[in-house]
């Protein structure tokens, strides 16, 4: 069964996008992770029906794909926020109060680390080292670094993101 015929009836934007991503790769097992990464990038998570179509396209059991998707931290089965706040909890950041910073952000967005806000805007993740210890405590929002954080600064940064919408 070809992937196109599977989706003839479903005409959503999501499925068209996912088909185009999947079809970029040859039908070989070794491209599983690459496809999953591209899907994660596009949708901010791995939707269940797309995981099924990947397994059909690559002719792999769904359990294999699920195993890979749950193994890597950069892949998520639940939708991640538009802005992913990665707070460093490496040694240097830890000593300079990253726990307080995480608490502060959690309180502000009313979610725990690993969760996503209801409006789908923010996710909090704790990472082990961002390699920018001189900036401790440091956090990264969608690739942008914010160093030497404290209560006031973090509030300003998040308000800025909230305001930009």
């Amino acid at each position, binding site marked *: 069964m070809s992937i196109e015929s599977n989706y003839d009836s479903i005409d959503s934007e999501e499925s068209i996008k996912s088909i185009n991503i999947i079809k970029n790769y040859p039908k070989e097992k070794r491209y599983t992770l690459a496809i999953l990464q591209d899907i994660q990038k596009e949708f901010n998570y791995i939707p*269940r029906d797309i995981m099924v179509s990947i397994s059909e396209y690559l002719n792999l*059991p*769904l*359990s*294999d*794909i699920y*195993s890979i998707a749950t193994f890597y931290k950069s892949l998520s089965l639940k939708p991640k926020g538009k802005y992913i706040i990665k707070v460093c909890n490496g040694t240097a950041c830890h000593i300079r109060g990253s726990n307080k910073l995480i608490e502060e952000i959690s309180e502000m967005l009313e979610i725990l680390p690993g969760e996503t806000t209801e409006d789908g805007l923010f996710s909090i993740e704790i990472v082990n080292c961002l390699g920018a210890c001189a900036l401790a405590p440091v956090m990264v929002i969608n690739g942008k670094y914010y160093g030497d954080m404290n209560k006031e600064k973090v509030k300003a940064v998040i308000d800025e993101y909230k305001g930009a919408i």
Partner: protein
Amino acid sequence: MKIKIDGNYYEGNLGETLLELAIRNNIDIPNLCHKSGLIGQGRCRLCMVEVTEGTKTKIVSSCVFPIKNGIEVSTSTENIIKIRKDIIMLLLLRTPNNEYIKSLAEEYNVVPPTRFVDVNSKENCILCGLCVKACESMGTNAISLVNRGTTKAVSTPYDDASKDCIGCGACADVCPTNNIKLVDKNNERNIWNKKFNLVPCSRCGKYYTTEQAINYVNKKLNTNEEPLCDSCKRKIIGEKFKESCQNIY
């Protein structure tokens, strides 16, 4: 080729692993994730032995170590016994209430750890992956190892009833710690959150396997045999054998 194990020589076959050779000759090497037919896991590390080749001695997992000429194997040096005890102790920390692991600890004189242990733990899975391998060998691939680190587990995708599962029970059969729950009740089988109708043996009427498993096997082997349970199948083969013997004499 001749392999020296604990001072005695044994005849080994090409391509055999050290553990297979040992099992064939009744040499005791404890193991959990090994099952003939599903070899090559090397996960539980309980089958560690010392291998000396020339002047070099190393510690290897015998279940994945292919035998070769000129090696000398020791299965119970001081070092190996210590490693074995450590591994069993760690397994006890993970599954402190599992009967099989507890009996293993007793057999190898391991004192149960008192620190860092959850005495009420209901964990029985040692994550050896034999069930996953069995499912893979069946060709069904319904279960896999999911997540990682402390949350690693064996499961079907999304913990749902898998469309690939045929309820054959191979996973429960190979599990060394009896962790996989297979419940046969009222002619129904429950496994991996999926319900199956059981099929009776056409001879003795015992409900023994699922419709899906029979269909799967028939489709794979391109046959359409009447459903027979293990003991009836054996009986029939025995009868046939007897008959053919009578014809000869």
